[in-house]
C-alpha cells in the first residue's frame, strides 16, 4: 500500500469532492502528504490520457470523468439530478435572486417540492423575504455542474449566452418574468 494509493482509494470511494483535511483525517496521513499525493495523482492521470481526472473544484478534490468523455459515460450512469429538478435549478441560476412565488408562476406548484429538494442538496439557498422565499444558487452548485466559475454572475452569463440573450451586466439581475412587462395585468403575488 502506498500513500498515494490510499489517497486515490479515498477519492474513488467517496464519490464526491473531498477537502485535503477530510482525506488526512480519515486516512491518518499528514495534510502535506495528502496534498502532495493529490497533485501527483492529478498529474499521473493527466499524463497517461485517462478518461478519469483528479480535479480541484472549489477548494476540494474529486475524481471524475473528464469532460470529453462525459457524454460517452452517460449510458451507464443516470444523472444525479432528475430532469425536472435540473430545469428548475437552471431557472433559479439564471433569475437569481428569484422569489419562490415567481418561480411558482413559472413552473407551477411543483416548485415548492423542487425548492425543498434543491435546498437539501445545497444547490440553492433560501432566505425568507416577506411572505415568500428568496432563492439563489448555493455553494455546491458550481461544484455540482463541474463549473470552473466561482461567482454567480459568470454562471448567469453562460446561461444568458445560451439563451441568446445579452449577458446581463455583472451585478444586475435578469428580471424575473413575473414583472409587469412579461405578463400584462399580472398582479404581484402575495402567496407563498
Amino acid at each position, binding site marked *: 500500500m502506498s500513500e498515494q494509493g490510499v489517497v486515490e482509494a479515498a477519492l474513488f470511494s467517496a*464519490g464526491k469532492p473531498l477537502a485535503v483535511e477530510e482525506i488526512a483525517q480519515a486516512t491518518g496521513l499528514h495534510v502535506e502528504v495528502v496534498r502532495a499525493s493529490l497533485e501527483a495523482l492529478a498529474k499521473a492521470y493527466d499524463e497517461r490520457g485517462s478518461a478519469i481526472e483528479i480535479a480541484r473544484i472549489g477548494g476540494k478534490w474529486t475524481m471524475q470523468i473528464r469532460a470529453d468523455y462525459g457524454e460517452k459515460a452517460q449510458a451507464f450512469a443516470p444523472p444525479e439530478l432528475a430532469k425536472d429538478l435540473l*430545469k428548475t435549478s437552471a431557472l433559479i441560476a439564471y433569475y437569481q435572486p428569484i422569489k419562490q412565488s415567481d418561480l411558482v408562476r413559472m*413552473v407551477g406548484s411543483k416548485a415548492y417540492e423542487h425548492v425543498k429538494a434543491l435546498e437539501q442538496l445545497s444547490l440553492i439557498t433560501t432566505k425568507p423575504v416577506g411572505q415568500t422565499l428568496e432563492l439563489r444558487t448555493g455553494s455546491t452548485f458550481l461544484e455540482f455542474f463541474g463549473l470552473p466559475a466561482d461567482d454567480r454572475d459568470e454562471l448567469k452569463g453562460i446561461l444568458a449566452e445560451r439563451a441568446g440573450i445579452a449577458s446581463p451586466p455583472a451585478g444586475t439581475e435578469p428580471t424575473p*418574468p413575473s414583472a409587469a412587462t412579461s405578463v400584462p*395585468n399580472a398582479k404581484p403575488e402575495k402567496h407563498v
Partner: protein
Amino acid sequence: MTNYENVLNHLMFHKALLNDHEAGERIGRYLQMVQEIEQGHYLAVRDPMEKAIAAAFELVLEHQFNPWEIDLAAFTKLYLEKVRDDGVVNFVTAGKLVAMAWTILKLQSDELLGRAEPPQQPEAFFSDWDLGLDVYDTPEQFDYTQAILQGRIPLQEAIRREGKRAVTLMELMQAFDEARVEAARQLELAALREKNRATAPKDFGNKVHGEDLNEDLALTWSRILESNGGSIPLAALADHDRWERVTVFVAVLFLAKMEKITLYQENFPYGEIFVKRISSEETLEPVPAHKPAEEVAA
C-alpha cells in the same frame, strides 16, 4: 438481643435462610456477628432499632455478607414505620443508614450485572475442535476455519463508484432551454387564471359560512386542480384576505374528509400546511343540501 433478632428476621431473606440446611447455624453466626458489632462501630447509635439496622448493614459492608440477603425494601418499610411511630427523626443516623443502604443497593446491582453478562464462551470452533480432528479432512481446512473464526476474514465488500454521475454543464443548458419554453407557457396560463379569478364573481365574499358550502368547495377545488397534483401550501390557495383564508381552510378540511386531498404539515406546530390532491375528479359531487355541514365533517 431480642431487638436484634426481630430486626434480623425482617431484614434477612426468609427464603434464603429457611430453605438453607444450615439456616440455624447461619442465623447463630449472624447474631454473633451483630453482637460483636454492638461493641464496635455503632455504639454511637443509641436507638436500639436503628442500632440493629445499622448492625445488619454492617454485616454486609464489613463482613462481606451476601448483599442479596439483606432485604432493603423490608428495611425501608420497617424504618419508615418507626419514624412514623416516633414522630422524631435523628437525621444524622438516618443519613448514615441511607448511605449504607445505598452502598448495599450498589453491591446488589453490581452482582446482578455480573450475573447478567453472558458467560465468556470460547469460539464455537474450539468446542468443535474438542470433538476431535476428524471433522476436518485436511489440515488446511482446520487452518482456514481457524483463521476465519479468529477474524482473518478474506472477504470485504467491493467498493465501486456510485452509479450516478454529475450533471454536465451542457445538460444544464439544455434543461434551461426547455425550462424557458415551459415557463413561458406557465406564465400565460397563470395570467389567464388570474384574469378569470378577477372577472368571475367567484370570490368567497362575505357570506355567512355554511350557506354555500358547495360553492366554497367547488372554488377551492378549482384552485387545487391548478396545481397538477403536486403539493401546494395552503396559503397559496387563499391570497385575498383573512375571511378567504378561513373559508378555504374550512373547505380544505371538508375535502380532506371527503378523501379528495390529503393535508400535511411540516415542522409541527408552526410549519407550513400543504395540500395534496389525491382524487382525479374534475368536478365534485355536491354535498347534499339536507346534510348539515357538521354531519359531512363528522
